[in-house]
């Protein structure tokens, strides 16, 4: 949830504070209730509750004489947002400053132990035990590198940690089940929770493995394994365009990302549909056999994409089930070598999903990650990886990554089962322009305007559209802070109908090719209760007499209707949130990449 940045370099070429501030602004989406920076060799700490702009006010105007530093944006897990709880944290004598992402599970015991021998704590965070543990080791005569290592060895839980020491022009770092990448630059070295944080400086990266220790210096990086032996690291080049992290003229990243969907889908499809063979091939999965059984594990929006996927696979004869990753447990769900466990995670760092994948790995299941981030933990820890190729997504609310997850999973279902048709391939290839046509001509903004003061928003769909009803409601909740629920339409009369009034618009996903008559029945149910009905449909003529408004989508293969319909719901949520003046890209209490369980 939190974000870390670190830098060691030559001051003349690149002021440390500038690199750290820029990095933090790129990491802000991961969490933002407070932020802070520490620089060495003096160990000066600047930190503040609030947004990054608040921190920038506390930074000195004059350049500081520093060659190394660390920075942090915090999303609270232990202790409320406050100046004290903001990272970096220091020891009693300000000899070391530490930033941390993750959760230290045994921090209570460690803190009691340290307080007993006289350490004074300033914050309520789990993190603060780390600088005090380091201090204790320094007092025993350890050098900074050993003191850092000794402190880390005491920790239980998940962490990415970086530290600077008084008198040292370097940054010490390590990770265990929390992301941390290193960057190599002509003028120094960097580290961060994810690549976009430093992509404006370098595209040469080293992915640190769990349990490895890194030291970054102006002259370069040094990586050692758990036992202290030097590791020969491989440097990879990432091909993301750093300025993709810019809003390119849009008011919000979310809107930019919604409009980027035709391009993202093009990238996702590229080279995969085979028009002459009337098949789909996924190069990176060529050695993956047809699975007998599949478990999808995912959270949030990715879970909705997984629900969509299970239907595709089941229809093609594969037993497929979607699980919320946080609820996945091989002790209660039978898993064996014949099971393919698919982790769907945009960031590849979602802690719940990673845990579920590790558990599945542990019992011998074959694992596949469907992710957007090359080199992410999910990509590295699974047997197979399929990339959704959406490009960087900055808005906390997932949009283009959901569209590409759906397209990728649809292709996966064809590639793994060998079941395809000419119509399926043609419909895939038609998606970019069909999404563009929705963006060119959507009425979502005016409909959002009409219902901006509704009591609640309900979304209903059947079959392939049911997951999109859930996703439409999630998007609405996330960015508008209004009550929204999605239901399988048949469930309405088993309870939710009691909530339906003339002040609760119902958004009905009506696909002319499947379950259309049944959906129309559900529409008339809510219509009879006086609720405004907005039909999202590829067959306006069929529903328009029962709907107050129609959001139309192009006619497509019925399996792809949900991909198109969802675009209208994204726009709807965006325009309601925009009208309400919400913090659309960084909704309250939410973070982009959920790296705690």
């Amino acid at each position: 949830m939190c974000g870390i940045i670190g830098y060691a370099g030559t001051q003349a070429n690149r002021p440390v504070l500038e690199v750290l501030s820029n990095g933090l602004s790129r990491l802000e989406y991961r969490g933002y209730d407070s932020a802070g920076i520490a620089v060495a060799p003096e160990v000066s700490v600047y930190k503040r509750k609030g947004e990054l702009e608040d921190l920038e006010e506390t930074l000195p105007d004059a350049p500081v004489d520093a060659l190394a530093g660390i920075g942090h944006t915090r999303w609270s897990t232990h202790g409320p947002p406050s100046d004290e709880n903001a990272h970096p944290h220091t020891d009693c004598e300000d000899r070391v400053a530490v930033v941390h992402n993750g959760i230290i599970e045994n921090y209570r015991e460690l803190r009691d132990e340290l307080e007993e021998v006289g350490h004074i704590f300033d914050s309520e965070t789990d993190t603060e035990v780390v600088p005090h543990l380091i201090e204790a080791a320094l007092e025993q005569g350890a050098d900074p590198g050993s003191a850092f290592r000794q402190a880390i060895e005491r920790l239980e839980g998940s962490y990415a940690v970086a530290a600077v020491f008084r008198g040292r022009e370097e940054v010490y770092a390590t990770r265990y089940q929390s992301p941390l990448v290193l960057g190599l630059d002509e003028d120094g070295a960097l580290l961060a929770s994810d690549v976009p944080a430093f992509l404006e400086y370098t595209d040469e990266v080293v992915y640190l493995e769990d349990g490895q220790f890194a030291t970054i210096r102006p002259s370069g990086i040094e990586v050692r394994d758990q036992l202290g032996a030097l590791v020969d690291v491989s440097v990879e080049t990432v091909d993301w365009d750093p300025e993709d992290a810019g809003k390119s003229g849009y008011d919000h990243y979310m809107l930019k990302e919604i409009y980027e969907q035709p391009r993202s889908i093009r990238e996702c499809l590229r080279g995969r549909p085979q028009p002459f063979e009337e098949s789909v091939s996924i190069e990176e999965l060529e050695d993956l056999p047809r699975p007998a059984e599949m478990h999808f594990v995912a959270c949030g929006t990715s879970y909705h994409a997984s629900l969509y996927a299970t239907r595709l696979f089941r229809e093609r004869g594969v037993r497929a089930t979607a699980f919320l990753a946080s609820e996945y447990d091989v002790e209660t769900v039978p898993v064996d070598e014949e099971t393919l466990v698919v982790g769907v995670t945009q960031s590849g760092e979602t802690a719940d999903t990673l845990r579920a994948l590790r558990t599945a790995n542990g019992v011998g299941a074959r694992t596949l990650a469907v992710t957007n981030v090359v080199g992410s933990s999910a990509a590295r820890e699974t047997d197979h990886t399929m990339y959704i190729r959406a490009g960087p997504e900055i808005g906390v609310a997932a949009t283009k990554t959901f569209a590409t997850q759906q397209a990728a999973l649809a292709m996966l279902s064809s590639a793994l089962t060998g079941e395809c048709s000419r119509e399926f391939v043609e419909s895939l290839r038609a998606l970019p322009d069909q999404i563009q046509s929705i963006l060119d001509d959507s009425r979502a903004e005016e409909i959002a305007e009409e219902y901006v003061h509704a009591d609640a928003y309900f979304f209903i769909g059947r079959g392939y559209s049911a997951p999109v009803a859930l996703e439409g409601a999630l998007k609405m909740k996330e960015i508008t802070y209004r009550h929204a629920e999605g239901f399988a339409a048949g469930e309405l009369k088993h309870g939710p109908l009691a909530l339906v009034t003339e002040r609760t618009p119902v958004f009905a996903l009506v696909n002319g090719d499947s379950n259309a008559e049944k959906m129309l029945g559900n529409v008339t149910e809510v219509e009879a209760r006086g609720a405004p009905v907005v039909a999202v449909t590829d067959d306006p003529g069929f529903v328009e007499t029962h709907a107050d408004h129609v959001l139309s989508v192009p006619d497509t293969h019925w399996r792809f209707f949900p991909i198109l319909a969802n675009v209208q719901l994204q726009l709807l949520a965006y325009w309601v949130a925009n009208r309400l003046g919400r913090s659309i890209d960084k909704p309250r209490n939410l973070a982009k990449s959920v790296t705690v369980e």
Partner: protein
Amino acid sequence: MDTDMSVSSAVILAAGEGKRLRPLTKYRPKPMLPAATKPILEHVFDQLIDAGISELVVVVGYRHERVQSHFGSTYRNVPVTYVFQEKQLGTGHALLLAESEVDGTSVVINGDQLVDSRIISDAVGEHDSAATATMALLQRSNVEPYGGVLIDEDGIVTKITENPRDGHDYHLNAGVYVLEPAAFDAVRAVESQIGEHSLLDGLSKLVDEGEIVHGAVSEGLWVDATYPWDLLDVSSALFDTGVVNGNSKIVGHETTTVHDTAVISEPVLIDRDCVVGPGAVVGPYVCLGENTTIGSNAVLERSVVDNDTTIGANATVVDCVTGTGVEIGPGSTIPGGPGDVRVGDTVYEDEALGALLADRVVDRGGVDYVPGALVGPETDIQTGTTVRGTLAGGTEVRS
């Protein structure tokens, strides 16, 4: 190419719809219409970067999302900044909106006309500290439809006028300017006029007040599409001048599939993700945008086919311009020009246009087109129809 160019930033004017290009501009502005296989504006960016520009400031307005989504925040590693002109109040108004994004001397250029980098370099090379502005000029026999500029023997501009008809020896205004901050001030000074105002009014004011405005006469390539069917000539000009290479041995891109039995006649340009079916004949002078599909035994000649378009089996497509996502059905025939094209009350006779199909026209197959047909967006043409003249968009047409 002038690599020592001292001017680093450019303002690109791309806010206007380009109404004369209707119906292709229903969903995107003229700068986003295809020249060969990429938008006109992308060519403009390329030429600016080739001429040494390292900062692009684009004034967007009509259907601005299309521009922003296409280019994002950088193009070829050059940062792109967007300035939004809500109402299209003219090039002068647009220029002033962009003023705060540039420092010192800047290039200002129309985003809806194709120029090559030589014209830009010539204007920058001619510009010196004595001049408040420099305009790139071309020697053309017919200046009347465009902007005309008179210069004296020292290359100093003496008169700027639109659609000159007085028989003087006018140069054509290429729409490429090098402006000092004082030129922005002059544009501001004429702003008080009600309604639209042109940056040319500002330059005329400089000329009238005796400030130096240079005319840089260039021999570089300059092509403008005045009417939608001109896109065919624009693409042909790009092939003929070598701005785009239509003779690549490897046609298209590695993600494009061309059947072994298809015949490709150069010059031709095939973009990514395309499919050309068995027995199809493509070219010469054919541009296929991204993700287009050519059915088996279809024949295409001198056509600009935009992204995501599908051409059915056995269709004949000659002298045709399509928008995006068009479907030309199996066996349909667009026989090629010349034909008379009717726009409003005006008839343009003997234009080399087979048919123009705007975005997402669907032809269900077996449709015959009388040369010069213009079909509006989303028109649904039923099987066996004969299409002649101009069809409004969004309708269903049967014979």
